[in-house]
């Protein structure tokens, strides 16, 4: 169950490493959103990290990406979440290191730019 102190710390950590990402809160949901640039394609990916206030930090935030790359996506078509193995420790893990995992995924699957002949 999310506490105000935890949310403040999550925002502080994100601000320190990913200041371009903005926090948001919705009914039952909260998180961060922003853009990452593919290191190979140069494409901008809209990233949303979203968690349930009643289940955070017990459950990790879900990761949504637009456009999606790679095949590790699961869920309803309009709400497909990134599905990769990553250890989640409620007493250690944060939104910021979730975004680091997303960056590793992008580094692997961001396609080379299309070269026209």
């Amino acid at each position: 169950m999310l506490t105000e102190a935890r949310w403040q710390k999550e925002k502080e950590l994100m601000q320190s490493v990913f200041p371009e990402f903005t926090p948001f809160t919705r009914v039952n949901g909260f998180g961060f959103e922003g853009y990452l640039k593919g290191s190979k394609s140069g494409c901008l990916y809209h990233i949303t990290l979203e968690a349930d206030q009643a289940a955070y930090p017990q459950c990790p935030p879900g990761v949504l990406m637009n456009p999606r790359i790679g095949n590790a996506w699961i869920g309803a078509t309009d709400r497909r979440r990134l599905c990769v193995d990553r250890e989640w420790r409620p007493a250690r893990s944060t939104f910021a290191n979730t975004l680091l995992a997303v960056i590793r995924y992008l580094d692997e699957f961001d396609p080379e730019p299309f070269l026209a002949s």
Partner: protein
Amino acid sequence: MSFEADNTNPFCRNPVERDLLAGRRIAIVGCGSFGSALADMLVRAGVGKLTLVDPELLAIENLGRHVLTRRDVGQPKVHALARRLRDINPDLEVEARWEKFRNADGLLVCCADSRRCESMVNAVSLARRVPAVFVAAYGAVRAGEVQLCVPGRTACRECFAQFREPAGPSPRAERYTDPEFDETRTPGRSGLWGSVLAVSGIAFHAILALLGVRPGPDLDRPLWIVNLDYQGFPPYAVTFASVRRGCPVCDESRIADLQVDDRPPGAITE
């Protein structure tokens, strides 16, 4: 101590415990090997109110180490277990919840094979300030682990769990198809029913101690390692260990410790 035989009273051999336990409510989260064994022991001891929580059906593969039998295969574990417990004590108030754990009243006993579920039980324990007992096994039940968590007095489950090794990827096919799949579940492991009962028997006494039915446990050493024949601990013995108290989940002053790098100290790095 002698007792008077009474053909109408199933608790005539443990009337003192029955009196102390009849009004107590216990929630058992996870009704597999450990959960079913503990539910059986607690009802026979006299616990009068039980909540059972488990989202699964009983499968053939469970029968080697479960109190339920072949006739219950395909049934929700909680429903079949509730029936069995009412056969032991028809006056038992038992609530069977065929679902994932969200909340429950009473002393929490977590026997789930999911770290996420453990985290949820821990969160409810902290929020409601009710004690919780976590029961788990190492490997093929060569050893067991019983952790007593008393909010404000002991370490919480996360204080301990943050240093554990990852559970490892699940071999279950649902992880690729079920959006709600819990990837923190421990992959199914081998192990003997007698070993489960040995660990459960110690956990049962930990619960009695927390409920005041037996002398109080040493809350400075709330982690009980029940070793059967696992290397590294004395064989067939219980070792009582301390757990450093305070983590960002149970102590707001420790939230400042959160880092961008979440690897625990000493974790193996690439």
